[in-house]
């Protein structure tokens, strides 16, 4: 018991911060070993069922979205007079240095897996991945609201707008091996086929106001790589034909790897560690790059030179100023192929079997993108109701949101398994409504006022939904079977 408590404490002690993060997949699935797709979070965690078939397209559909900047309540509230108040300062205080809006979707085209002699597990899956993410800097909002005079001798990062978009197809071959009663190892090798991409490699526009003479220095360094975006916006192309070609693009190849390991500490406690999506894609089919003509160039405005104006005239002075600004901020278009890395994740998990039917799990995820680590943490409780129903509830700190209460359910009807999971069950169901009157004109030319409405999630920081339908077989463990986790 002492050993158990100490192990849990050691692991949980590593969960120090609830930092901002963007999750790419739901976390609540980690504790649901009955679902074959839980294998994707750690290839060493062999699913419970002996084999499964993932029905095309509907075996795993995941959609997630969020905005980890401000929430509506940070901006809009009502005062005691029942008037709506826009509190910009509160909005700014709730933002971090970089704020993200994202939308993602992963869909299994097909999948299947099977065990061999309870020692080996093979998994094959084809998945369509798509995500889009945009970030905006807090400094720009600060600059607009407070002005540059409030940030003397500070460098404002006003240009850190990063747009990322990635659409690729993944064909993965997984293999897991039960090494001994303690250790299990697994790996997934992936062949990747990139479709479209937008990658903001650098978007550094800074503004510095010096404190003594208020000299203003701006720097610019921009590099945005895109693939197929140029074709998508080309109106001269036959769009139908293009979409056909697009859907079967194989020119942008890449490779990826998932590695995982699990360690059974004792009958109650199991630890897991995995590295996911370690790889890259080379973009060649239709690359287009927007790059600063003078990367890292800076321009300092330190005042008008009266003597130059007197000598050459103000129009010549302004022309020189304009030329300098263009020289710094002008952007070139090139067509060079490039490479992007996948958004690698590290999962560290721990499981504690309370009883045969009850389990507590913890997951610490580190997500790497935009040259930063984005961690998140999840604590879950799962309860089995026979082999038919598995229910799980979770609490997560992710995407700068501290109120993610998740719920998951897996129901087995014979060989058919239906599952629904969400890391934030409340978000889709609690809304705020915004109304206003808008002047409209009827068919007779008369104007009238009509009430318009906009209903938005109250907490839009993190919403996701993962559901699917599998065919699973051999899920009932034999009497003498010692499951990996349960």
């Amino acid at each position: 018991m002492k050993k158990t408590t100490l192990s849990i404490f050691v692991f949980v002690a590593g969960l120090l911060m609830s930092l901002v993060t963007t999750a790419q997949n739901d976390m609540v699935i980690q504790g649901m070993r009955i679902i074959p797709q839980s294998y994707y979070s750690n290839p060493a965690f062999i699913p419970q069922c002996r084999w499964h078939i993932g029905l095309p397209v509907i075996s795993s559909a995941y959609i997630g979205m969020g905005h980890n900047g401000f929430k509506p309540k940070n901006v809009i509230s009502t005062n005691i007079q029942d008037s709506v108040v826009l509190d910009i300062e509160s909005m700014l205080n709730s933002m971090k240095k970089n704020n993200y809006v994202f939308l993602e979707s992963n869909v299994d085209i097909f999948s299947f897996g099977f065990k061999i002699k309870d020692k080996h597990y093979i998994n094959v899956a084809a998945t369509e991945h798509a995500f889009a993410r945009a970030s905006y800097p807090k400094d720009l909002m600060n600059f607009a609201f407070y002005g540059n005079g409030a940030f003397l001798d500070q460098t404002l990062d006003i240009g850190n707008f990063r747009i990322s978009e990635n659409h690729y197809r993944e064909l993965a071959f997984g293999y897991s091996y039960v090494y001994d009663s303690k250790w299990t190892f697994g790996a997934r090798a992936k062949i990747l086929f990139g479709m479209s991409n937008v990658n903001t490699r650098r978007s550094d526009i800074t503004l510095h106001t010096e404190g003594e003479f208020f000299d203003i220095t701006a720097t610019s360094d921009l590099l945005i790589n895109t693939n197929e975006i140029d074709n998508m916006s080309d109106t001269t192309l036959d769009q139908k034909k293009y979409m056909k070609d697009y859907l079967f693009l194989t020119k942008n190849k890449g490779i990826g790897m998932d590695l995982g390991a699990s360690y059974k500490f004792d009958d109650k406690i199991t630890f897991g560690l995995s590295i996911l999506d370690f790889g890259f894609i080379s973009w060649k089919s239709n690359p287009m790059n927007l790059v600063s003509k003078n990367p890292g160039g800076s321009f300092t405005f330190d005042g008008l030179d009266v003597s130059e104006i007197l000598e050459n005239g103000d129009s010549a002075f302004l022309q020189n100023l304009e030329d300098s600004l263009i020289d710094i901020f002008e952007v070139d278009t090139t067509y060079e192929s490039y490479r992007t890395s996948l958004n690698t994740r590290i999962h560290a998990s721990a499981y504690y079997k309370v009883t045969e039917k009850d389990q507590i799990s913890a997951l610490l995820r580190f997500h790497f993108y935009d040259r930063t680590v984005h961690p998140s943490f999840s604590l879950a409780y799962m309860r089995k109701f026979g082999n038919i129903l598995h229910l799980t509830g979770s609490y997560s700190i992710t995407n700068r949101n501290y109120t993610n209460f998740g719920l998951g359910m897996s129901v087995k009807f014979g060989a058919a398994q239906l599952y629904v999971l969400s890391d934030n069950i409340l978000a889709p169901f609690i809304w705020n409504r915004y109304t206003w009157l808008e002047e409209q004109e009827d068919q007779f030319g008369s104007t009238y006022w009509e009430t318009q409405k906009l209903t938005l999630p109250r907490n839009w920081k993190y919403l996701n939904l993962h559901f699917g339908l599998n065919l699973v077989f051999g899920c009932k463990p034999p009497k003498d079977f010692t499951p990996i986790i349960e």
Partner: protein
Amino acid sequence: MKQMLWFFCLKKNMPVMKVKILLLISVFCVVTLLMSSCVKEEFDMDTVSTTNWNPNGAGPLINSSLTMWDILDDYDSTDLLVVDSNQMVMLVYEDTVYSQSAEELITLNNQTLNYSDNLSIPGGNLSTDYTASYDVDFDFTLAGGMELDSMLLKQGLLNLSLNSDLNYPATIIMSLPGSTQYGTTYRDTLYYSGTSGSISRGLAGTKLVFDNSVVSNRLSVHFDVIVHGNGASNNSPYFLNFNMGFNSLNFRYMYGYLGQFDLSLNNDTIGIRVYNNSLTGTVNWEDPRLHINVYNGWGLPIRATADYLAAVRTNNSPATVVISGSGIPNPWNISAPASLGQIATTSFMLNKGNSNIDAALNITPQKILALVSGSTNPNGNVTKNFVEDVSRMAVEAKLELPFYGTANGFIIQDTFEIDMGEDLDHIDWVLFKLYTNNMFPVDGTVQLYFCDSLNNRLDSLLNPIDQALVAATPGAAPDYIVTSPVSKMVSQTISGPRVQNLEGTKKVVVCAHLNTYNSGGSLVKIYSWYKLDVRLSAQVQLKFNSNDL
């Protein structure tokens, strides 16, 4: 039994039942949740009010490194800053006046000759040509005692007519011995038939040569009368009456003695614009120089007189100081050029040593007046003269002011147009920072006055006034070179009611009180590499309340 059997079955199947019921409840809950959503709060956006918005902006306005050329540009854009061999800067003001040209001053009146003589043809009726020659002296009457040796005409008209009772046709050839037209002896032909004949000829390119040995300005004329006999009766003697006129003569050049006359000049006025905007104060120029240069294009001696030299102040407390001294030559003989087309220069210079020029400049005058006149051939007909039609005399007055000396209480003021706008309600305060890095050995207290269109003062920038310019320390004599500039930062915040005072500002009056180093007590020199670095920056706190947004 049946009940027991039923109960037994029920008990055996209870776990499965329990699961199924639980499953149904779960499904129901999920479906209920999915089908419904909760609107937690509703916001009427028509009642929205924002929090106040108070941005603060800061930026540089002016960053200049001003040389003397930049500083004085506004004052002396048409005058000259010159650097001497020691790199010291001096102001040079100059102006030039011109006399009338020779052709404007010397007019040639029309000349006429009337000559009568007889013609006797020997023998009886004339059937062949008979020639008779006549030499006539044509004495030109010229004003001013001129005695010309020669004169090239660029314009003129020669009229010649003959009245006679000759009953034969005749050809009269008139020539001017010694005179030429375009290099060939001047010759004209008049045809006589009946009772008279006449011709008119242009004289452009004609060089008239005069003989002054007996009578001044005598021009020789020769007539050859060729009578063409036609067998008519010979009624000799016949009378011949020649009428000859030189009209509308304009010369290109003249040689000889041109007489005595006055060369009148306009007043030569040098504007000293640096003092145009000065209000008061004293400036001591340690080495001012006034050059008077006469440029003579007349080929004859001229005696000039500096009739009047004075420094004139027209600003506050008008004053005039006559410039005098041993440096002003009297009489002043002007050199003549050696040949046609040349210019001879004669000059004199006034400085502290030979005049009171320094005292004259101490009143900070706006102009120097120089009145110079001249007269030709002061000693009479003792030297041969020559002159072109465009010959003139020019008088140049040049004032050089090396920046070497002292200044005390020198106030200069200038006005700039500016529009601050009519509504400054959104400005909470404005901070101005004025930084100077001064290499000039000049102290300056600068104030900016904000005025309306009627020049009413609304406010001033620096309150209290502050010394924005600190003099750099000049080195030792004789060069007084500054080696280290001096920096000063002056800050001023305008807030509250003072911001409102800026509304309606249409003009900014910049007023500078300047003293050279040590309150004008030490000599300084200003060199061409001296600079004044000026940086003006501003920070503005704006305020917008909910009603404004």
